[in-house]
């Protein structure tokens, strides 16, 4: 009866666990954070879903919008602002901090987070057109209150404080105005979504680095003209990362023209002892205008061998032709010196021990005296009378199986026996 009950309980637990495991297997990534992307991507323009891409001439203006999404289950307060691009270490893309003065593309963007004035809420004109209208109307002798309000609104803001409820998304319109004196070529920057710490959130304990997170959406504006697409190799090194026991191949390229250049770095590794290609690693990255990009490729540290490393960088030049830059070949020996040293030490120790024992045996033999074998004596008899093992006697005299002794034969025996 009791066993039956236990069996039923066991059944329930097993089936319930199986059911829960089945349900859990289908769960997706449960993190949905704060992020942004272009609100009006052009499906015909590659990367336009991730970046704002413009080719506006100097003096031009364009309206666009940033879509901000709060995928988290909590309300989020954030600050949105445009920022200049700034190089990160290794040539990575980063954006200036909010506290810094924007002098490039970050200063060309104006945000319009609030709705248009009521009188122009239904107006279909773009923000630049509407604001041009406001300028013209405001220049008249007695502008109306609506025009004055519109003109004020047209000033926009440099940064916007926004609160997003859980799973809410908003589009923040903005206008990019290209200065008349903007250089030909690419100008990069971005729109930044920076988390604002809630007032009710406890502050971090003092005495450390206080962290804030932010997400940036790139803006690339290329002023038409003589575009130069040129890439130069700047460095190629192979060095071990001792703490990680990895080998790091570092390839540096410089975008020497006036635009950023997408390129593919292919690292080839060959085993020169067995004459075979052991590994090929490919990385597609972007070198920013006028900046060096460092690509670090981690490889397993070979245990032993002679390997050659060479990188190839492929890109498309100004004329649209494919270009390939080859680095010099670096050859490296990999020898496990530590392991070899240990093996050598063990070998030396064994040899030393063997030599010592051999010397000891010879030393003993020098102290032994000759003995003439009598008729009927064998090795065991002679050894037992001297209180030693017959095998020691045989070894000391270099006797081989079957260890027969002849009468009159001279062997050495220990002194005093």
């Amino acid at each position, binding site marked *: 009866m009791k066993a039956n009950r236990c069996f039923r309980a066991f059944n329930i637990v097993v089936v319930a666990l199986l059911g829960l495991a089945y349900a859990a297997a289908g769960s997706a990534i449960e993190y*949905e954070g704060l992020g942004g*992307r272009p609100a009006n991507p052009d499906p015909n323009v590659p990367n336009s879903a*991730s970046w704002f891409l413009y080719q506006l001439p100097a003096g031009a203006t364009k309206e666009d919008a940033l879509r901000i999404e709060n995928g988290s289950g909590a309300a989020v307060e954030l600050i949105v602002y445009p920022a200049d691009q700034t190089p990160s270490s*290794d040539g990575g893309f980063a954006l200036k901090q909010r*506290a810094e003065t924007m002098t490039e593309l970050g200063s060309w963007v104006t945000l319009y987070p609030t709705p248009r004035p009521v009188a122009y809420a239904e107006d279909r004109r773009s923000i630049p057109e509407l604001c041009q209208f406001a300028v013209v109307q405001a220049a008249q002798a007695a502008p109306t209150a609506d025009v004055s309000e519109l003109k004020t609104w047209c000033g926009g803001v440099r940064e916007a404080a926004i609160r997003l409820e859980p799973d809410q998304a908003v589009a923040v319109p903005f206008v990019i105005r290209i200065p008349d004196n903007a250089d030909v070529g690419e100008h990069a920057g971005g729109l930044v979504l920076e988390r604002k710490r809630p007032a009710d959130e406890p502050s*971090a304990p003092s005495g450390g680095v206080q962290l804030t997170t932010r997400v940036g959406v790139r803006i690339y504006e290329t002023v038409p003209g003589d575009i130069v697409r040129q890439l130069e190799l700047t460095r190629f090194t192979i060095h071990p990362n001792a703490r990680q026991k990895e080998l790091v191949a570092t390839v540096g390229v410089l975008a020497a023209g006036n635009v950023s250049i997408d390129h593919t770095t292919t690292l080839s590794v060959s085993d020169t002892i067995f004459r075979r290609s052991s590994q090929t690693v490919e990385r597609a990255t972007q070198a920013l205008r006028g900046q060096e990009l460092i690509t670090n490729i981690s490889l397993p540290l070979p245990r032993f061998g002679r390997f050659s490393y060479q990188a190839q960088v492929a890109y498309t030049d100004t004329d649209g032709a494919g270009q390939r830059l080859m680095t010099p070949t670096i050859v490296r020996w990999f020898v496990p010196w530590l392991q070899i040293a240990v093996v050598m030490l063990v070998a030396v120790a064994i040899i030393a021990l063997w030599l010592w024992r051999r010397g000891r045996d010879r030393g003993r033999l020098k102290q032994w005296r000759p003995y003439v074998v009598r008729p009927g004596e064998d090795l065991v008899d002679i050894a037992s009378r001297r209180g030693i093992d017959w095998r020691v006697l045989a070894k000391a005299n270099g006797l081989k199986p079957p260890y027969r002794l002849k009468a009159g034969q001279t062997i050495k025996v220990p002194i005093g026996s």
Partner: protein
Amino acid sequence: MSKFTHALLWKLNLRAVIAIVGILVLVSGAGTYVYASSTSNFQQTINAGSLAIDIVDGSYVTVGSPSVTMSTATFSFTCQTITGTFGSASQNIYVSNPDAADNGWTASLAASATTAIWDSAGTDYDFNDNGGSGCTDGADTDTLGGQMTVDPSVGTLATGQCNSCVTTNITKGSSTAFLEGTTNSITVLTAAAASNDIGDWKLTGVSVSQKIPEEQPAASDYDINMVLSVVAS
């Protein structure tokens, strides 16, 4: 065993248990699965999410007021170095890319301003001055010495909740010191175009070291504000 449990177990047979659990599973999994029907067409659109960076705990919950605690130091007549670890089991550096950045992304760390300092109630010290190997004031705009070095290359990069994702094509940044006007931002991670378009990753164990000038007055509240950013490539 209570009378109720006893009665329940006695009344239930295995088939009934399977049926009940099956119903429970279907109900609990309804939010996850869409079942095909022979008479109706179900359509579902999954929108790409947004690239995000965050500091999360082991359960992928955003950590309120994240920070990096540095080792304690005592007053010294010579320049000294304190260390810290950026990214830990309870404060993972977390990047989530739900099909938002197909061309890769870059995560970087910077101070909230190039003129930021390790601020205390008393005297301060710098984070981006290489004067005297980071021990004395150099040619920057303030009159403070001190320099911070961040080494992402010694960190441990792992996939997050995504079972099918890999860390291939994501590169940890090199060990770099902040230097005002030259290195204002340090690359922590770079995801190449061939990295997973849908995935999430955790980075822990990034080494942070800070040179503190000699005879820096003792204080328990030296703070600096830093910003962790991610930008789609």
